[in-house]
């Protein structure tokens, strides 16, 4: 038996760590969603299409700009020393994923903005001939290939960083897993594909995105299994942290919201949609988005709850 009494009473630290509230999970979710959208945009930009044929890849950069701005807004709200935020951009701390993330976010904006500009039809830009000429250059085959590559690379970096950001904070055993990076990336890809399916103007693209999303959801299930197996087998401290999701205070919300409603149910519905058994519905994609948000909330909150066992 060990009983620990302490006179410490610092806000956000005691009785259990709670430094991050809704802002961080929301940012991680929106960042992951944008990351997934960028990777899909990059892929769709490489697809051959008939002249005049519209693609959801034309809409995603615009939506990405809105989502990442909302995400960064949430991130800014979380900061306690807000007026000093510019300090992020006077340095690159090579060992800090948060520092890398700050710079990756700076890359996200121009890539999304160029992608958005490239989708503008001439009529929109008649009043700004210089911008119109630049937009036409962006529509060239070479520029499209480069933009597609930039979307994929920056999207993957953004998606993985949101997971590594947590896993680098080794004091929280639940986060001490290299799987978090790929898990958040795949979850972001899933959210991106689910949402793109809803707004895709073309039925063929909708089918393709559904198949992608099913693949992402199955991969996500596998990564969640690896995440838990890793925690359960690496040592006592991590196994205790895993119990938060396997019999602790976060178990119900994790298995019901994240795995059940966020992965298994939409996977089942979307499999029926792909098989042509039921018509397309927005229910499944909405559940995927809900599950992605719930995943970030559970991991961020439960991770803060986990700690190294005292002496």
């Amino acid at each position, binding site marked *: *038996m*060990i*009983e*620990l*009494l*302490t*006179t*410490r*009473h*610092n*806000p*956000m*630290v*005691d009785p259990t*760590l709670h*430094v*991050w509230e809704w802002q961080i999970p929301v940012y991680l979710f929106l960042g992951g969603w944008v990351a997934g959208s960028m990777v899909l945009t990059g892929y769709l930009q490489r697809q051959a299409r008939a002249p005049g044929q519209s693609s959801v890849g034309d809409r995603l950069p615009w939506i990405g700009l809105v989502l990442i701005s909302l995400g960064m807004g949430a991130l800014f709200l*979380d*900061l*306690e*020393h*807000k007026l*000093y*935020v510019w*300090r*992020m951009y*006077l*340095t690159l*701390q090579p*060992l*800090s*994923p*948060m*520092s890398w*993330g*700050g710079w990756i976010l700076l890359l996200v904006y121009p890539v999304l903005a160029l992608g958005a500009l490239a989708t503008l039809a001439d009529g929109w830009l008649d009043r700004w001939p210089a911008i119109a000429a630049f937009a036409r250059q962006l529509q060239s085959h070479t520029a499209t290939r480069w933009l597609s590559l930039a979307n994929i690379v920056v999207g993957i970096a953004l998606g993985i960083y949101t997971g590594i950001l947590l896993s*680098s*904070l*080794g*004091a*929280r055993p639940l986060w001490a897993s290299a799987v978090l990076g790929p898990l958040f990336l795949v979850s972001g890809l899933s959210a991106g594909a689910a949402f793109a399916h809803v707004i895709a103007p073309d039925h063929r693209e909708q089918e393709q995105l559904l198949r992608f999303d099913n693949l992402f959801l199955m991969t996500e299930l596998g990564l969640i299994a690896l995440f838990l197996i890793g925690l359960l087998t690496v*040592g006592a*401290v991590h196994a205790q942290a895993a119990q938060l999701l396997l019999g602790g205070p976060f178990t119900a919300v994790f298995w019901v919201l994240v795995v059940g409603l966020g992965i298994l149910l939409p996977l089942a519905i979307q499999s029926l949609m792909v098989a042509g058994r039921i018509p397309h519905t927005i229910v499944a994609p909405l559940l995927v988005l809900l599950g992605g948000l719930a995943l970030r909330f559970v991991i961020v909150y439960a991770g*803060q709850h986990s*700690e*190294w*066992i*005292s*002496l």
Partner: protein
Amino acid sequence: MARFGMVIDTKRCVGCMDCVVACKTENDVPDGHCRDWISQRLQGEMPDLRLTITSERCNHCDSPPCVTCCPTGASHVQDFGKVVLVDHGKCIGCKACLAACPYGARFIHPEGYADKCTFCMHRVERGQMPACVDVCPTRCMHFGDLDDPESEVSRLIATRRHFVLKPDAGTRPRIFYLE
């Protein structure tokens, strides 16, 4: 180059909290916050119980996760004494360092920056001891250069059984507790 550390004798510590009060006074620690604190661990089964009292604070680790995670370099290891400090003017209040510290040694100052024990560097640079060490009525706290084999802290560590807090966290803390 010095590498400061602390040795605390748990056989002598009575948990009087003088160190806590001295720190709050010396460093103007805001109400409702503390840079150091007292913990009591009761271990064993009745009737074989053991009570260990420890005066705790930032461990100024040799592998400080709070420094590596900091996105602005505000958390840093100072050359003099290899002490872990926070540059308030660089801190954005992201709280990554609070999450990265396995000891819960940091908090957010009401002005928005991360705050914690500094080993009273402003006193040490003047040749004084940290305030907590200075006021301890049982003389259970010792401060000095761990790299100097002749220092009091080095001799205590070499000759007495000791432990550190949460060694498995891999941070290589520099506060040693004598058993």
